[in-house]
């Protein structure tokens, strides 16, 4: 929400700086008094959680990089040296590895929150597109990071994924092979491949940080969406970001860190794969090559298509289709809470993503493949059919007059209470 600046430099130094670089003014206006809808629920706390996770991953990663050796012979052993001989190395590495998974937990919740409450709709299209861009950068970064321990799963995941580019041979013979050899830096996955993956794994988090800055900028122009999906109409409906949302986000962040810490300290290898504790061996293919859990739905979509080139196309489409969501959804209301028909399709879509995740972890044959194809079909139908058609046909439920109407009491809202109504008392939400 564009709002007039209320920053008052109180000392000479602050006035001096404000005339030259108004950074204190920006901090004050955007992170202290920034008007935030007062009815945001706990699903809105994941933006702050994600910011924390990015910083945590960069901080642990920078220290890990001081001890890691990006060579075929050194990678696996240097990771074990970190685990055994580097002071607190085990904590750094487990925090970083589990952190990648927690990062994806948070980003998927964040994305589904945006999808449910229509946060991608005008005037927040650019905000959404930047979010999808961050997701794609995260996928690339985590894939490259997973390759670095150079265990069996690292090696074979790199082999499988880089080989996807060879499907371009079906378009122009030789193009795919050339491209893959260029990516590998040789005629097979090897030392040069590991070295470039390491270099890019160090670069990408900073690209993410840059896009995150744009994402926050794009958020601060229209301001936050909210659970009702209707626009803020008066300043009374907002509260200053600090202390209200610093406290609420801070509380949610700590609960998140509590879960994160429990995994790091008590089940650090829960999200990993035992095969990655076997050093990479180009001569021995593991019986099942499975990606990390957060890629499983996309992996299921890739394998659902019998043609390699089309499978890769479907994989890319499954992510890039998110860019077009703001224009695919034709509904006039934002929040799914007020959309009686779309609501069912939405939850069916959420279940589809979970089902695809399960199917991605199973061998691609028999019924797994049949269901993989069915769910892939619905995955795309949700975006290409449900979003445009249901939005046109459906009659939304009556919207509240203002965002504070449900805040002041759901009895004021006509009809049934909303599925996820904003609550006045924070403790009820907690």
């Amino acid at each position, binding site marked *: 929400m564009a709002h007039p600046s209320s920053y008052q430099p109180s000392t000479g130094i602050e006035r001096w700086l404000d005339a030259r670089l108004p950074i204190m003014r920006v901090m004050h206006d955007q992170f202290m008094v920034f008007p935030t809808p*007062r009815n945001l629920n706990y699903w809105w706390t994941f933006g702050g959680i994600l910011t924390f996770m990015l910083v945590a991953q960069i901080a642990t990663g920078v220290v890990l990089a001081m001890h890691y050796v990006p060579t075929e012979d050194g990678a696996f*052993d240097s990771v*074990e040296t970190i*685990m*055994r001989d580097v002071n607190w190395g*085990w*904590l750094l590495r*487990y925090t970083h590895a589990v952190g990648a998974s927690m990062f994806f937990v948070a980003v998927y919740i964040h994305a589904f929150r945006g999808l449910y409450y229509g946060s991608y709709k005008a005037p927040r299209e650019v905000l959404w597109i930047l979010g999808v861009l961050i997701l794609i950068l995260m996928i690339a970064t985590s894939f490259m990071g997973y390759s670095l321990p150079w265990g069996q799963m690292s090696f074979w995941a790199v082999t499988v994924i880089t080989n996807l580019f060879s499907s371009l041979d079906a378009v122009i013979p030789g193009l795919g092979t050339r491209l893959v050899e260029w990516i590998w830096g040789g005629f097979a996955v090897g030392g040069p491949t590991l070295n470039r993956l390491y270099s890019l794994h160090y670069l990408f988090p900073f690209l993410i940080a840059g896009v995150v800055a744009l994402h926050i900028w794009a958020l601060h122009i229209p301001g936050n969406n909210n659970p009702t999906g209707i626009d803020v109409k008066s300043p*009374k409906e907002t*509260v200053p970001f600090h*202390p*209200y949302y610093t*406290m*609420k986000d*801070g*509380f949610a962040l*700590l*609960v998140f*860190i*509590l879960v994160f*810490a*429990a995994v*790091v*300290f*008590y*089940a*650090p*290898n829960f999200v990993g794969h*035992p*095969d990655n*504790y*076997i050093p990479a061996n180009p001569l021995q293919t593991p*019986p099942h090559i499975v990606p990390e859990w957060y890629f499983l739905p996309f992996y299921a979509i890739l394998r659902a298509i019998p043609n390699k080139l089309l499978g890769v196309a479907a994989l890319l489409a499954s992510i890039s289709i998110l860019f077009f969501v703001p224009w695919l959804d034709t509904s006039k209301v934002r929040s799914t809470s007020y959309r*009686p*028909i779309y609501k*069912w*399709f939405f939850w*069916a879509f959420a*279940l589809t993503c979970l*089902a695809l995740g*399960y199917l991605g972890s*199973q*061998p691609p044959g*028999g*019924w*797994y493949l*049949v*269901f993989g194809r*069915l*769910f892939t079909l619905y995955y795309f139908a949700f975006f290409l059919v449900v979003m445009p058609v*249901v939005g046109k*046909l459906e009659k939304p439920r009556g919207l509240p007059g203002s965002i504070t109407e449900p*805040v*002041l009491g759901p009895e004021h809202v006509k009809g049934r209470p909303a599925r996820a109504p904003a609550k*006045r*008392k*924070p*403790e009820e939400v*907690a």
Partner: protein
Amino acid sequence: MQPSGFSLAGAFAVLLALPGASLAEEATGTQANGNHAPEIARQSWSFTPPFGTFDNAQLQRGFQVYKEVCASCHSMRLLSYRNLGEPGGPEFSPKAVEVLASQVQVSDGPNEKGEMFQRPAQPSDRFRSPFANDQLARLANNGALPPDLSVMAKARPGGPDYIYALLTGYHPAPQGFELAQGMHYNEAFPGHQIAMPPLLSDGVIAYTDGTKPTVDNYARDVSAYLMWAAEPKLEERHKTGARVMIFLIVFVVIMYLAKRTVWARLKHSNATHGA
């Protein structure tokens, strides 16, 4: 509402069918495919989270099993002798570690004459590998390569449970099971054909602390020892974890109260607005 109801019924049908189908697939998979990993029984260990610690005496016995039996074929190249005396491990005394290391001859050099030479190992040396290279290891083992055991307890599904099941899983092959030449039947091993012969039998290792010298105890002790070798900071992790969790729980409560206090101001102003 018509389209919604229709698709809903479809979605439910698909979802209800899913688990049944997958169970059926799994069942047939087990029967048809001998390579399917067998069920591994869970054992009770002293080191299970959240508060578990290693049993030093058990790790010392496990090291003894490794040294006297496993080490003749399996390397543990990521470990040093000094690790045997570090906290959270077998915790041999510094003197004992020196003696254990000095029993082993390692190659060093080159010296000023440009020659490699043999010397007794020091605590800072890595465990000596039984074979100079993989080719020699295969040559001595009928073509099979005995894997390095440094992180074995994390490199197999089931971890120490699997190692225990493997070491106690040697049985006569069932009727009609085709066993390849030089292979041994093992219930826990995927495919049930393992190149490693059953080397443990009651009494082959003389325990000195009164523990019964049975295959079951050997297998249990060496599995615990390998778990420590794979995760030498496990005790430190559990101890640090307890402190971190207590800190975080207290912090979460304080943060919740702070948040509630701040938001309570709003409720007051709400009430006045509402009235």
